[in-house]
């Protein structure tokens, strides 16, 4: 059954309710790391770093299937899952940047992995078509040519992840009663 019909399904609503809270938790932790990057490296405003960003090639995970105009629930779910996988990988660059906050970054990576598998298992429980992500298609970490580029890279990985989570959150809320 197409996902829209399932919106009334109680188990699906419980899944959405739980993972909305989970997404809020992850967003809170990403915001905390953004504050650390701002305090530690004085990198706080995105508009001041657009020029350098062009040189860094930081990938942004696509979520166009989750935007209201072209919302397609099943495709959106698999885009969320593969996006979480991308950010789980690129957070390693943030962990190198902030060794004293490694625990918080590792928690973030664990949460991203959990959220991704929560979605996968719920989609499987609903009998929907699932996209199995290749086991370890970790994109190679961007090689930064300087410490400054590494810092700006870390800044944008977190900024992009925060935007990604915002879109994913709105998509889940759109499905929740």
């Amino acid at each position, binding site marked *: 059954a197409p996902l829209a019909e399932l919106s009334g399904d109680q188990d699906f609503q419980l899944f959405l309710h739980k993972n909305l809270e989970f997404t809020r*938790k992850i967003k809170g932790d990403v915001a905390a790391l953004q504050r650390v990057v701002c305090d530690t490296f004085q990198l706080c405003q995105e508009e001041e770093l657009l020029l350098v960003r062009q040189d860094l090639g930081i990938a942004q995970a696509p979520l166009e299937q989750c935007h209201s105009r072209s919302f397609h629930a099943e495709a959106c779910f698999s885009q969320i899952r593969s996006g979480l996988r991308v950010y789980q990988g690129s957070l390693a660059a943030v962990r190198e940047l902030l060794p004293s906050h490694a625990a918080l970054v590792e928690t973030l990576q*664990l*949460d991203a992995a*959990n*959220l991704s598998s929560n979605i996968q298992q719920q989609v499987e429980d609903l009998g929907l078509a699932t996209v199995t992500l290749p086991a370890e298609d970790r994109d190679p970490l961007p090689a930064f040519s300087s410490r400054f580029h590494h810092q700006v890279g870390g800044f944008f990985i977190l900024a992009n992840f925060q935007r990604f989570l915002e879109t994913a959150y709105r998509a889940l809320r759109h499905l929740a009663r």
Partner: protein
Amino acid sequence: MAKSELCRGLEQGKVRITWMLDNEPMAGSQRRGAGGSEVSNLTLPQFNRTQARLWCWVEWNGTKQRVGVAEIRAGYPPAKPFNLSCILNLSDYALTCQWEPGADSHLPTSVALKFARSRALVETGCTPQGGHNRCTVPRQLLQLYRQMELWVSATNALGTAESEHLCIDPMDVAQLDPPALQSIQSIPFQSDCVTVAWEVARSHAHMELLCELRYRAPEDAAWALVTGIPGQARTAQHCGFLFGTPYRFQMRCRRSSAQGYWSDWSPGRNYTTHE
């Protein structure tokens, strides 16, 4: 029946074996075995100990020599552990579970907390240390916001026993920190009403919380209770207070979606309503 190779220096055929259960002499029979070995044969009537050593002694140069030992252990298959309960610590997101071990089996028993995430792969969450009946599953092994199956497994030489299986989402058994009452003020022109303001712990900011407020005047026998307060609202109004009366207020919260644990009551805060 115990068999021990003969030691060098013992002349053939003159080996006289005696047996002792710990320090008690035991009757037994001795016969020649294959390859020049000596075989002892004993029966231990109503063995009522859980642990003992059956020593094999031999006369040698006029002295008695210990030449072999058999360790004997007696006990029961492991009892079924029960009363399994778990609690998630929100400072490190580790899940601590505890249980009742049941009767002692008197045998070396290995106990482990097992779990299966949704895809039924059984894993070991943790093993209790130092004889405790609890242990902590680290965050790395948990799957948050999804049902997990947890149980205790006890195994000894005589068998294995499993506790009831617990099906929980770790978040549903999170132990919340108490809210912090920030201020209590009378509402102008409605002095039987007050506005209560509180803060929730920063690490709970993303949670939907349901809170309870209790208050009591010194002469009141019991606390009055206000339930169903949405935690993230951070303020609430309540009426029905007596004028000019000193009240003591406390608050606690729980995740609204779960049958989880209440936080402790917040530290108390006093406020005297206006005349």
